[in-house]
């Protein structure tokens, strides 16, 4: 069991009304996909708005099978066609 602090931005942060979520993962060595799923569980209002989101780990976009480690800086990068 690992808890990862995950940053939120933009519309997702507004929706969640917070800038960070604590994602509780069953695994000690969660993948990015598992962390993203845990974000949705920790913050159900976000769950349906994570389809087009990726995680950034230490400021690099990762794929859902990449590992996330305690101490990594993790952020949800939600693409909503802004700009």
């Amino acid at each position, binding site marked *: 069991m690992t808890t990862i602090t995950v940053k939120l*931005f933009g519309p997702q942060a*507004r929706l969640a009304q917070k800038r960070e979520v604590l994602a509780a993962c069953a695994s000690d060595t969660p993948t990015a996909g598992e962390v993203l799923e845990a974000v949705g569980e920790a913050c159900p209002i976000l769950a349906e708005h994570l389809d087009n989101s990726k995680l*950034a780990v230490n*400021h690099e976009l990762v794929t859902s099978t990449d590992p996330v480690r305690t101490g990594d800086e993790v952020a949800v990068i*939600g693409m909503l066609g802004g*700009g």
Partner: protein
Amino acid sequence: MSPTATQVEVQLTKGALGPATDWRPKGAGAVVQFEGVVRPTESGRSLRGLTYECYEPMTSRMLGELGADIVEEHGLIALRVEHSIGFVANHAVSFRLYVASAHRKAALAGMDQFIDRMKQTIPLWKVPEWENGDD
């Protein structure tokens, strides 16, 4: 040839962008400038403006990488991107992209593609600030 640092410039600015500069790189035959202006309505609702958020240094780094890709793919001479961070009121400029190339078609195609990819891949978000109260 991979683009050099001097060919791609990225500038994030707090609040609305100032006036455009006379950006005209040496050797350019076509210089195109795109400005994105905040519009006072979205989906029929009135706005006060938009708030932009970035995630530095990732945002600047990825804008620079995207710019370099576009310069290389379209054979451009140079590219410069300016974007607001924070609140920008209606009618103000929040985004400006300059592209320089030898000929027109490459400049316009590169500009279009930069903006398409920026919207899909760059950690840069906008949040509408509605006219009446919160959302």
